[in-house]
């Protein structure tokens, strides 16, 4: 890639789960100089991805992180894993499917746990699906057909900025041409910017989503609700909403962390999935989780096809075993059950609960990340890595499971490798050491 200015079209964005694929990115001298069609979040990432980068591998010596050769870092990482009885491999939603595939192989080889960030965002969604299933569709179906759209416990204006214009309310579909042909209902605990665009905003009391969904299910069934209000919402209004749900031609319910991370978690999702399932006996209705990271869905998919399970997989006994709560990262760490960890493109030190973080920082920690993060600073071995979708290519899965290839646009800084390469090298070194019996 040379000095000439060149423009890439149809670039896949690697920020949020919308995986918008219509970006135009102009590159000159191996840096991004212009971004078109993207949202602010995406533009900012593409223009600033060189900030706070790690430029060389590091190892902790006498309490301090200091630069080292790549070989030494690989060797140190392999040795940590080799000594470990219960290693945890965590992260995986900000990297490519190809890297996750190597990650699963590594986890199997070292006899450890592999978990992705799902366990702290949409894990409950998956637990709900195990029980109920889900009636879903790709986003294009919503664009073409939906006359009723619900955002529940999510705020796409800020978290998924182009979701509405590309896929839902403001998009132009075959059977729905404009905003006026669609109705938007927003359910949230506060009047978010998304709520301001709604035809109907329903303010639910904090942590009362479950009650409200139960009431809606009852109203959809045509049952009488004996209470005057549920979760702060008057029963009359609930009945009115139920009528709207039943009488639409094609409804789509999107939900976010407001549902999955408020008390009740998987049961909240369970209820939402059940509501949508019930509605299908009256009309057409789909439900789609608003996945956050650009490839968290891909990580789930790869792990599922390789092991049968989407996250929180235990390989310690040589076969895949799955039980979130028992085998998920936060819970393992909270019980102090891991004796080393490898983190790929994630920052658990900033995000995990206190007790889990304490245990995480007290065990040998290997981190692969493009940027300096609190987790990197607590690590014993650090690998700088190339950014997927900017400096290296890879497959990613949109929130609705549509697979896309995020392309390489520029060369990574010198000596900076992709996650795949680093993981493969660690795996190779591990196998060698094991064969030599060290």
């Amino acid at each position, binding site marked *: 890639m040379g000095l000439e200015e060149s423009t890439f*079209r*149809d670039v*896949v964005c690697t920020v949020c789960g919308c995986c918008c*694929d*219509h970006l135009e990115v102009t590159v000159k001298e191996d840096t991004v100089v212009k971004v078109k069609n993207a949202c602010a979040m995406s533009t900012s990432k593409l223009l600033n991805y060189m900030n706070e980068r790690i430029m060389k591998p590091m190892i902790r010596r006498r309490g301090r992180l200091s630069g080292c050769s790549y070989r030494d870092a690989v060797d140190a990482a392999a040795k940590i894993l080799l000594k470990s009885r219960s290693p945890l491999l965590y992260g995986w939603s900000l990297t490519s*499917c190809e890297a996750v*595939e190597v990650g699963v*192989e590594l986890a*199997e080889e070292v006899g450890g746990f592999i978990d992705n960030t799902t366990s702290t965002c949409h894990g409950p969604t*998956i637990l709900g*699906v*195990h*029980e*109920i*299933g889900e*009636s*879903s*569709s*790709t*986003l*294009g*179906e919503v*664009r*073409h*057909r939906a006359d009723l759209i619900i955002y529940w416990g999510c705020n796409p204006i800020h978290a998924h900025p182009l979701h509405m214009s*590309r*896929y839902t309310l403001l998009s*132009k579909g*075959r*059977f729905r041409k404009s905003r006026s042909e669609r109705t938007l209902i927003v359910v949230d605990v506060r009047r978010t910017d998304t709520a301001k665009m709604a035809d109907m905003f329903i303010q639910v009391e904090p942590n009362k989503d479950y009650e409200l969904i139960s009431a809606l299910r009852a109203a959809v069934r045509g049952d009488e609700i004996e209470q005057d209000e549920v979760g702060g919402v008057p029963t009359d209004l609930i009945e009115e909403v139920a009528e709207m749900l039943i009488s639409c*031609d*094609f409804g789509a319910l999107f939900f976010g962390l407001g549902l999955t991370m408020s008390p009740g978690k998987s049961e909240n999702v369970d209820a939402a999935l059940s509501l949508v399932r019930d509605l*299908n*006996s009256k*009309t*057409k*209705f*789909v439900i789609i989780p608003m996945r956050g990271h650009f490839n968290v869905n891909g990580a789930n*998919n*790869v792990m*599922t*096809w*390789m*092991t*049968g*399970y*989407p996250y929180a997989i235990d*390989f310690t006994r*040589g*076969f*895949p*075993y*799955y039980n979130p709560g028992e085998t998920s990262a936060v819970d393992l760490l909270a019980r102090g059950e891991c004796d080393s960890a490898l983190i790929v493109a994630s920052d658990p030190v900033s995000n995990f609960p206190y007790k889990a973080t304490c245990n995480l920082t007290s065990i040998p920690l290997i981190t692969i990340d493009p940027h300096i993060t609190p987790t990197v600073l607590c690590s014993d071995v650090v690998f700088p890595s190339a950014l997927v979708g900017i400096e290296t290519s890879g*497959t990613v*899965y949109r929130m609705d*499971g*549509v*697979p*896309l*290839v995020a392309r390489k646009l520029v060369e990574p800084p010198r000596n900076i490798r992709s996650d795949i390469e680093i993981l493969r090298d660690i795996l190779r070194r591990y196998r060698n050491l094991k064969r030599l019996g060290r």
Partner: protein
Amino acid sequence: MSREIAILNGTVFDPTNRIFGERMDIFVKDGKIVGSASSKAQRIDASGKVVMPGGVDIHSHIAGSKVNSGRLLRPEDHRKDVEVKTPTTHSGVGYSIPSTYTTGYRYAKMGYTTVFEPATPPLKTRHTHEELDSTPIIDKGCFPLFGNNWFVMEYLRDGKVEECATYVAWMLKALKGYAIKIVDPGGVEVWGWGKFLRHLDEKVTHFNVTPREIIRGLCKVNRLLNLPHPIHVHTNNLGNPGNYTTTIETMDTVRDMANGSKPIVHITHVQFTGFSGSSWLNLGSGAPEIAEYVNKHGHVSVDLGQIIFGDTTTMTADGPFQYFLHMLTDNKWVNMDVEVETGSGIVPFQYKRSNYVNAIQWGIGLELALLIKDPWRVFMTTDHPNGGPFTYYPRVIAWLMSRKARERTLSKINRTARRRLTLPSIDREYTLEEIATITRAAPARSLGLKNKGHFGLGADADIAVYDINPSDMDVLRRKPAKLRRAFGQACYTIKNGAVVVRDGKILKSPFGRTFYVESQTKPEIESNLLRSIETRFRDYYTVGIENYQINESYLRYPAKVRCEAEI
């Protein structure tokens, strides 16, 4: 380095080359069948054993978004069947929706070396390829879904068959697909509105085209493109009592396009569309009628979709049928509609011997296999995992080969069903050469895979050696358990000239190839078409055409099959 193998003294079944159980040697060099081998060749003593080409599965749901959603839906399915890591294999889970590695290993252990995933939503075909590339040992390919595709329906509505053909050719190339798959034509589009479509001549809402027109149109397209495999059809009305008439009507609707003796339409998992009767209470087997039609008409082939009693996971692109199954069973349900193209559904299901309907279904599959006379036009499948997991193939083989095996199961099924089935009165027992035909030679021919399913010189060295002594056949027929064991665990499986399985154990697991079809249409026709679809693409899809196409370099070992289009 040349890799040579000599398989000596086996009893060889190679129906394609009219070898029906002859004692002979088979030689392998560099992954191909050759006429002789040097003294350095690895020698395999196959005396007292049966040697067949590697198995070819024409219809088995092993990869892609729907299969993976099935895995995600059912942790309980995996927990009861796990594979522990060994020095030669990865760990995994099994039962009805095995993980990718396990899928490859288990097929290889049964002597199967080629498997086709029969339903990939085009928009998610990249996912299908990722999984196929993660499935070791076997060669594979996938059939993109076309029966509810907006472009296809519009071209056919407007009578633009040639444009449609050009589009299909481009799609197969862009997706690295192998054949035209049609599922519930028009019905899945209507299901996009939560509605049902019941007749071949009912118009698809908003598209003004009928299932019959879609089937006929795509059949013509298939012909224009000279694709190696005929249109692969999952008919309308699947799972409804009386649907055998839809099956016959579907076969008959393309009769006038027949092309010599070569089948031009393949009806898949025909058991599921072989119901007679008008309700669940008087449900019966439509197998005799369907078999009669197939026997009289050379333009049709079918595969069984045999059911196996027990727990499994049903998954099809037939969204409305899966919803119906969910309502019937109250079991958990996944639905996934895919913009512009198709849909899919998943429901766990238990086939029970005591259940009248299930028992009839079991009978329909076997009746079809036994009443259709020409083994070259009926292939063994369970529509994995819809009828049951592919790991039960040995059981199906035993039912086909041994009247005794059938009688044993018959004695345990629902009594009313037993009374109403023709099956108890059928004496036919498949011979080994017929088994070799329906499990490898015929599906390979139907797929147009010239180097598969036989031992002609230059054929791919995909070979299965089974511990069956053909001179003991009479004994084996009385001991079906032995027969099952023999077909369940190959003594040797050789894939592409390498011994990958010995005595049912995996020795190594190289990755196989992915077949896809390129039917070259005239360049100017193609570029005109591309221009016209490019403008519509962003209107129809939520992704760009650039990101929709899959480069050949995306596949691990792509294997292009070329054909000449007539346009």
